[in-house]
């Protein structure tokens, strides 16, 4: 099934620089699974180590990153245990501090 992953707040720099990806994922996959799948498939080999440190910490998203599942905070949807549904849109938003 297909889902869409989007980056906000500059997090695409941890990956290949694209702000939007359409991914084929197995049914029944959790968001936790997705996090690691993204590290393995969306990061260029030569910057995976660095990118992983920007994206993850202690096996979840790093502090300052919000995960938004279909326009809702993942905290409202079961956090990383949420089971992905077809056509879900998952946004990874890094909080900004500038002004």
């Amino acid at each position, binding site marked *: 099934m297909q889902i869409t992953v989007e980056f*906000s*707040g500059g997090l695409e720099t941890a990956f290949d620089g694209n702000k939007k990806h359409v991914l084929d994922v197995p049914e029944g996959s959790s968001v936790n699974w997705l996090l690691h799948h993204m590290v393995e498939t969306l990061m260029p080999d030569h910057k995976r180590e660095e990118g992983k440190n920007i994206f993850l910490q202690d096996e979840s998203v*790093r*502090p300052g990153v919000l995960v*938004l599942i279909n326009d809702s*905070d993942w905290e409202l949807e079961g956090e990383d245990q949420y089971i992905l549904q077809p056509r879900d849109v998952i946004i990874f938003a890094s909080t*900004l*501090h*500038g*002004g």
Partner: protein
Amino acid sequence: MDRSDSEKTDVLPMFKQEYGRYGRQMLVPEFGISGQLDLRSKRILVVGAGGLGSPAIQYLAGAGIGHITIIDDDTVEESNLHRQTIHAGNVNVPKSESAAEFVGKLNPCISVTPMVVRLSPSNSFSVFEGHDLVLDCTDGPAVRYLINDTAVLSGIPVVSASALKTEGQLSIYNYNGGPCYRCLFPIPPPADAVQTCGDGGIMGPVVGMMGMSQAMEAIKLLTGVYSESFTPFLMLYSAYNFPPWKSVKVRKRQKTCAACGDVPRISRQLIETGQVDYSEFCGSPSQVLL
């Protein structure tokens, strides 16, 4: 304000001049005369007179917020002006004074106080006192946590925005069952993930849009639009994307929050005695306090 020909009588709740000045917004059904009277009685604190504060202050002053306090210890530089248009012609002037000068010219019916100091753990509570709302228009994570914690402990809501490069974000914190900044971001980001507008760059209208949105949300909040029911949200703007705007629902107040939770671990005393180390805690990737 020239009140010579504009007597406020016992019958009218505003001076005649104010009816003229604010007439166009009082015509709007969602706002009305009651909205104007609400704003007139309110005191707002704007922390930061930079890219966010510049439009926010202009439109809040225009709308007739009774009193605006502007705190910023920075001085206007030429490199600010593409996005901090309120400081036109005021290079080398303290930003809070420059912004207050603009407010005075725009709307003599309201009062404004500039403070040329840096918001710090030792002054934040006295600076916040007596205000109905705080606008977080700052440029860095440490002061954002300080504003949040002081606002929570003072019982004052915060309209918070941020921007970098082509993107911006906005939320309301500490209001009507909604989260505080720490509810959403309990652990500060690693320092190497943080960029300011100075080092990361910023498009003027991007940060302008966010400051403008802060003014709009402040007006809504102060006129009671969110008083009956409030669904916490985050607005995301990305100027080069289509669609450029996304609005998402976020978590409510978190019981486990260090600042606003059921068993808060942050107190005024801890802050004022320097035991919540705002200057350091965003300083290293792995360091986490509280």
